[in-house]
């Protein structure tokens, strides 16, 4: 897994590539802790798989962003990744956008 943290139109964008799993999710968590923007987009387009620790990390990021009065959107997930959210009903918690561009106008 690789995480790139970018600034785009006042958003904090996290572009993740690869598998978010039990050994890599702490890295995403660390990257998120370094930012302070109230508008966050996590670009999951290049993510192949997310395990429970990855989902939990995203849940925590959502909670922390909301606690500061901000908002967090997930963008570009593949069907397979989407079904991981659906089974755990997390698709109901997150704002999910088809692409990063769409997320950047709507989050």
């Amino acid at each position, binding site marked *: 897994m690789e995480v790139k943290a970018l600034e785009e139109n006042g958003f904090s964008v996290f572009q993740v590539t690869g598998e978010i799993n*039990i050994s890599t999710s702490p890295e995403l968590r660390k990257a998120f802790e370094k930012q302070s923007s109230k508008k966050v987009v996590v670009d999951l387009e290049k993510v192949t798989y997310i*395990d*429970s*620790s990855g989902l939990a990390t995203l849940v925590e990021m959502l909670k922390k962003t909301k606690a500061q009065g901000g908002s967090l959107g997930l963008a570009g997930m593949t069907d397979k990744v989407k079904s991981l959210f659906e*089974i755990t009903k997390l698709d109901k918690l997150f704002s999910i956008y088809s692409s990063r561009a769409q997320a950047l106008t709507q989050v």
Partner: protein
Amino acid sequence: MSDKEIVISVRNLTRNFGERRILNGINLEICQGETLVIMGGSGCGKSTLLRHLIGSMKPDSGEVWMFGQDIAKANEDELDQIRKKFGMLFQSGALFDSMTVGENIALPLREHAKLDEDIISIIIKMKLELVGLRGFENLMPSQLSGGMKKRVGLARALVMDPKIIFYDEPTAGLDPVMTGVVDKLTIDLTRKLNITSVVVTHDMGSVFRIADRIVMLHQGNVLQIGTPDEIKHSKNPIIQQFITGAAEGPISFMQTGDNYLEHLTSKIKE
């Protein structure tokens, strides 16, 4: 199934307990992403077969191939590595009575990974949600009903996101609605995540809801293996008696025979 990758291959598996031969040369192949149901009379060796599949029992002879390795010959270190990749729901639930529900679920996570406690807590709650037990993380197993313990066992089996899950009677003791919830979860995990499920169950409703293939064990052997349709229309009288639940038939539970009187009056060994 022939086009699918085989993830578990059982070859000539034999196991005796004392004088009794329980598994008598089982051959079985399990494919990636299928739900295979194992059926058979009580005491015929279903749980014993599962224990051999997960490597907690060693066969007298035969092989169990999983993840490119013969589990039957793996040592404890190798088994430890393999155990990370599958989940097991035991017939009894097998929870630790001295730990809370949450601690029980987190056990495999704490053993195999270094995650922040906040993340572990979210994972515990996500898994409890899956099995319909939101808010039960701080109870002790002794404070739960049998069906609830079963579901906590299932949450624990799922905590490492295994690719293969073994279930020993997951719906025994559950009410019809919870049976439906657990069945749907099994189906979702297979259909949506391509997880392989091996399920021992006596619940005929569940069997025909979840199975891609069914294997019927009888007297230590595979009697028949086939799709739900093939099993439903099987001409084998033992299978027909089993799925219809008829008391009379080739499977005899009334063992009255010539020596019944002798048997009743013989001394039980000390």
